[in-house]
């Protein structure tokens, strides 16, 4: 029995017939490939070879939802992101809020599910002072996602139009914390959105 085995069994205990073991071995190899290849071919840097080898396994990866990079807090734990929204209501008032909302998003798992919205959209949005060519190229990648968020906000709060900003929260150094100093957040406009003719779903 190999180390860390769940629990040893004497050799006489019946195991599977050889043909079944061959079949299961093939399935195991396919499954292990579907587990190992996504992080290998996933978040950059990744090799062309890994991206070529993964292709036949992509259906299995999609079928079992195995397409994960597993780069938790890597390469460096960075600043957090939120989306600040400002909504114009039908009565002329303005309503503002955050995604996620640290005060009202309870339980904590719900907060994290909403926090992922701003964190994942942030991976597609270049800084506001990035070269224009970079910003133009990136916009088709993030804007459909932001439109979905805006639509959900408008439907949820019955608003007329909503303006969104991505806020990258300043990450203070230990020295700044000791001196009680905090830097500026980086704010990137994500646009203003409304349903056609103000029609809510």
């Amino acid at each position, binding site marked *: 029995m190999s*180390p860390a085995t*769940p629990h040893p069994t004497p050799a006489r205990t019946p*195991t599977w017939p050889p043909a079944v073991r061959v079949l299961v*071995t093939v399935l195991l190899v396919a499954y292990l490939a579907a587990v190992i290849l996504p992080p290998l071919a996933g978040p950059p840097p990744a090799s062309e070879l890994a991206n070529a080898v993964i292709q036949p396994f992509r259906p299995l990866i999609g079928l079992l*939802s195995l397409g994960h990079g*597993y780069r938790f807090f890597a390469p*460096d734990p960075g600043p957090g992101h939120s989306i600040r929204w400002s909504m114009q209501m039908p009565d002329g008032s303005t309503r503002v809020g955050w995604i996620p909302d640290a005060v009202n998003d309870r339980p*904590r798992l719900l907060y994290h599910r*909403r926090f992922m919205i701003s964190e994942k959209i942030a991976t597609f949005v270049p800084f506001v002072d990035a070269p224009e060519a970079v910003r133009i190229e990136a916009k088709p990648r993030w804007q459909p996602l932001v439109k979905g*968020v805006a639509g959900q906000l408008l439907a949820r709060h019955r608003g007329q139009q909503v303006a969104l900003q991505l806020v990258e929260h300043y990450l203070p150094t230990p020295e700044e914390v000791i001196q009680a100093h905090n830097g500026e957040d980086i704010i990137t406009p994500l646009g203003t959105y409304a349903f056609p003719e103000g029609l809510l779903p």
Partner: protein
Amino acid sequence: MTLRSSPVSSRSVPDPELFSRTGQGGAREDRMRDGWIGEWVDGWNTFWFTPTDPLPLALVRIAVGALLTWSSIVWLLDADAFFGDHAWLLPSDAWRMNDQPWQWSGYFACSSAPAIRLVAVGTLLAAVLLTIGLATPLAAVMALIGFVSAANRAPLNVFGFDDVLGMLLIAVAVGPAGAVLSVDRLMFPRPPSALRSVRATLAIRLIQVHLCVIYFFSGCGKLLGASWWEGTALWGSIANACYRTLDLTWLANHPLIVNALTLATLLWEVSYPALVWPRLTRRIVLGMAVAVHMGIGLSMGMMEFGLAMIVANMAFVPAETWRRLCRISPPLIESESPIEVKRFGAATQ
């Protein structure tokens, strides 16, 4: 053991006889066992196909069922916003976050709020049944279907907790997770000697190997970051107010502690896939896992993620240890000279 090029290396298709270890393989198997490939085949068979006690898998089942129950409740709190036609992520844009073929979801077929709730409540019900172990095989498959449906429909809202939950659910669906500690077993008792199974081994091994893959890539990813080498990476988590549930910013005055915690985390994670297997280091590695994941859970508010990782680490705790801890009597086994145990190290704890 020396390498032999012929005739072993000329085989391109595994011979089923090579997988036999019960005395039927004859002379050819004996020759193969003497070679390097034979060692591999023996090792593979022992690793994956030795029948084992399903108790650890049953404990994983209870824990993962409870976590999925909680996750399903949270999805239900805002089901329309996660899965509806005007969700945070529109159905037509789901592919942008997870562009795989066969990226299916039961929610793609649901356009009305009642239909969405029906799928979500169905997943919740399957999770509850899985936890108590009632109709366990069916509940495990339905729970997996419900889980994948949510993950594939709302990829904008999932994170590491869901990655680990999926890994555990696949294993629970593969193995006899309801063989013990379940309502099924109360309703349909079986003799203890009939409980050991190869499927239990497969399921636990899938978790073990998958967990090593996770730590390997997570550790390698960290090696790309300067802050992990500098020993300051943990500060990035401590100072991030979006995650913070426990204020540890007083550590700003103790940079060496931050250095030590950062480097300990890095070294533990990078070495986990190697050091979790030997009995000598396993307890240390698993103890670190509990400390790190509880730390993440308490200080960064990701208790579900921390618990899911700890549950996955439970797969490395042998059945005998669980039986001792839980005061459960062991299943009856036939007595025989433990040849394979002796050959491969016999480490069970």
